[in-house]
């Protein structure tokens, strides 16, 4: 604590020169400003994508078409996915990385601050391109976020906008990933060895490598779509000697690592929060690191499990089944380690901990359904049904998004210098957790009972669970307004946060004042103050 005070005294104003007002945010190269921009952008996209989800659930509230035509419905499912994946979850993780990684490793800022500014400011342009398609003749892209040809080639004026938006998002992600790798490998404080890194940093390095390896593959795939559409190539057209299934292979070679890009940082955050509120070191730190690496490796050799029904040789199906279910081993190890961390601990249940605990349970449920989907013969039934929709929303909403919420509550006091409203936070947690299960759990039943995904209308035997699911969806959507209230209230004021904020908190970020000085660590922290990642 005394150390933190010294930092504060030494580095108050004289390093803190930056333009004010709008220009501060446009020209900023500061990791915290950019982190804030990323997080606010992500929250905005979370609500835009959320509105699309509300349109979907409204139309599915009862059988028959009441509100939108099928084409627009397909646009909503497509855009909801693109906005949530590329606009909400990925930028949110980059925002967390920007804010926390330099502080966690004892650095003054990111290694490549100007690239950092650029990687953020590409995003608003990318999403302006993407969202502008809603107002174009022919409507927004409606071929699914997976952009399978030949269907996606039937997109109207929106098509090139979709492709270039994806390119921009990819460029932004790659720049962010390079920056994070450069920062972690070059900017660590003396004494911060790799095996002392907090798990959030570890999971993010691995995520960054996944991004660098997989995003160019996506860029290649969508470029081939572009040339197929406009320049007469036939990469994906059987009539011209191409292969529509090849697109799916290329897409999922990106797409499966992408899944772990969305979830690995969540593992890191949960691994920080559970030990803090359990007041006990994380169980099995090094096995957590190795498990993350194993998951990342496996993520590159399982892609065709998204395509079991597409028609593959038996040997291919067996290979992808075995590798896919193998992912359960390192993932299971993580869950067991978290539970072991709770055993014989001393827990309290502030909002970040509640979200982290809900993450462990609900992400595991998503993991179970993932295991079921990985078993090829049964996937011939599950594939492209609401069972899949339930599965990936359990891992992405109650997985990634819940971890984001947990992280936001965990570090909001550090970011703003003020404690958030704990009562409001608890309300947000309980309304979200109950409603999200009402929303997604019945979708397992719908899928098993035979409801395909991506349909705007359904047979009447699916009516009841759809209505239940929609009610859950509306409540979940509204609950997120509570989160906005918490954030706004916390930025505006509140009880002053201490440096350590949480009683059980360990790690460099808690040695700095709340909020931290503009240039985080201008003097490297004492090597003796570096405790190692299991705390």
């Amino acid at each position, binding site marked *: 604590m005394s150390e933190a005070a010294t930092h504060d005294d030494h580095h108050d104003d004289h390093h803190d020169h930056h333009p004010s007002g709008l220009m501060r945010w446009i020209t900023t190269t500061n990791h915290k400003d950019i982190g804030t921009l990323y997080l606010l952008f992500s929250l905005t996209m979370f609500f835009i994508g959320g509105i699309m989800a509300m349109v979907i659930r409204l139309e599915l509230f009862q059988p028959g078409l009441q509100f939108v035509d099928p084409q627009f419905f397909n646009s909503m499912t497509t855009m909801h996915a693109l906005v949530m994946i590329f606009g909400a979850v990925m930028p949110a993780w980059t925002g967390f990385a920007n804010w926390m990684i330099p502080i966690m490793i004892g650095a003054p800022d990111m290694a490549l601050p100007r690239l950092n500014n650029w990687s953020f400011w590409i995003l608003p342009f990318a999403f302006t391109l993407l969202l502008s398609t809603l107002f174009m003749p022919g409507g927004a892209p*409606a*071929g699914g976020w997976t952009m399978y040809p030949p269907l996606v080639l039937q997109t109207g004026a929106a098509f090139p906008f979709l492709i270039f938006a994806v390119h921009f998002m990819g460029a932004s992600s790659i720049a962010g990933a390079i920056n994070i790798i450069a920062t972690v490998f070059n900017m660590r404080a003396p004494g911060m060895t790799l095996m002392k890194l907090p798990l959030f940093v570890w999971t993010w390095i691995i995520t960054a490598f996944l991004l660098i390896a997989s995003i160019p593959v996506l860029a290649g795939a969508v470029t081939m779509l572009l040339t197929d559409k406009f320049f007469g190539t036939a990469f994906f057209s059987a009539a011209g000697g191409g292969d529509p299934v090849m697109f799916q292979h290329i897409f999922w070679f990106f797409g499966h690592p992408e899944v772990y890009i969305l979830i690995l940082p969540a593992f890191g955050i949960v691994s920080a929060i559970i030990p803090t509120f359990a007041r006990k070191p994380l169980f099995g730190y090094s096995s957590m690191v190795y498990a993350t690496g194993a998951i990342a490796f496996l993520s590159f050799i399982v892609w065709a499990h998204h395509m079991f029904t597409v028609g593959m040789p038996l040997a291919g199906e*067996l290979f992808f089944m075995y590798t896919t279910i193998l992912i359960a081993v390192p993932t299971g190890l993580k869950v067991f380690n978290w539970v072991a961390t709770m055993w014989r601990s001393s827990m309290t249940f502030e909002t970040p901990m509640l979200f982290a605990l809900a993450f462990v349970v609900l992400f595991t449920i998503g993991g179970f359904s993932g295991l079921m989907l990985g078993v090829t*013969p049964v996937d011939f039934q599950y594939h492209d049904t609401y069972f899949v929709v339930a599965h990936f929303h359990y891992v992405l909403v109650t997985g990634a998004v819940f971890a984001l919420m947990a992280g936001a509550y965990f570090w909001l006091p550090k970011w703003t210098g003020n404690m958030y409203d704990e009562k409001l936070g608890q309300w947000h947690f309980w309304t979200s957790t109950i409603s999200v299960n009402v929303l997604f759990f019945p979708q397992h*039943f719908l899928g098993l009972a035979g409801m395909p995904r991506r349909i705007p209308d359904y047979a009447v035997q699916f009516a009841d669970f759809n209505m239940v699911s929609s009610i859950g969806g509306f409540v979940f959507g509204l609950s997120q307004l509570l989160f906005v209230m918490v954030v706004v209230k916390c930025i505006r004021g509140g009880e002053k946060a201490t440096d350590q904020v949480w009683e059980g908190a360990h790690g460099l970020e808690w040695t700095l004042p709340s909020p931290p000085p503009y240039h985080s660590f201008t003097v490297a922290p004492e090597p003796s103050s570096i405790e190692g990642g299991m705390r």
Partner: protein
Amino acid sequence: MTFSKIFGSRTKQAVVAAMLALPASASAEWGLNLPRGVTPFSREIYDLHMLILGICVVIGVAVFGVMFYSIVAFRKSKGAQAAQWHESTVVEMLWTVAPFLILVGMAVPATKALIMMEDVSGADMTIKVTGYQWKWHYEYIEEGVELYSTISSDSNVARRLDSGIDPNTVQNYLLDVDNRLIVPVNQKIRFLTTAGDVIHAWWVPALGWKRDAVPGFINESWALIDEIGVYRGQCAELCGKDHGFMPIVVEAVSESDYAAWIEQQKSESDQPVALNIEHN
């Protein structure tokens, strides 16, 4: 397309109507699980599904049980003191190896089922299924009989935006067609799936599988239906605007009824235009 166009003044009306519809729809079935189906393969994977689900439930109960016990027992408010141990190679090895062994136990029956699924040899007959936006075309290869199958007209009218028809009043809403696919029971039928425009997927849950219909490529699957009945399904791969409106109806009939039906089709197809005009 603008939002005002989509959310017209009828929004409020429709929401109120939807609320009133709640009790009406309560009569619908609350299907919870996979159907067992009517083919050897569908029953095989139903058993596999129940096995894996069972394993997941047991593991889930154990893990969440320990977790909830910890949440109740190890609270600071109850004066719990945190231990400081943080690793155990033995324990960590144990919960790496044990799940691996469970997975091997699951992979064995799964491999068997998959080999069974992919063995299309010895088929008694072949049906070629071609997906189009948005209908199915069936061709009985050996018999030279073919037919198109599209959504039935009463569903097709009721499903329009603003149709004013309550789907609950339409029989087999969205799951009925003009021309059913008639097949015999107790015959190993080889299905060849392909498509004429974009990718579709042919799925009848009672048969136990779905298979993508990819333009330019032909996929093979098989089914041996052992119960007479009508089995319904839908397209399962997003194929554009009317993806939700290209149902599949398979009617499994006795072998003699099938033979009679085929004969009738053949005689009708002597007047080649009759089939399509009559049924479309």
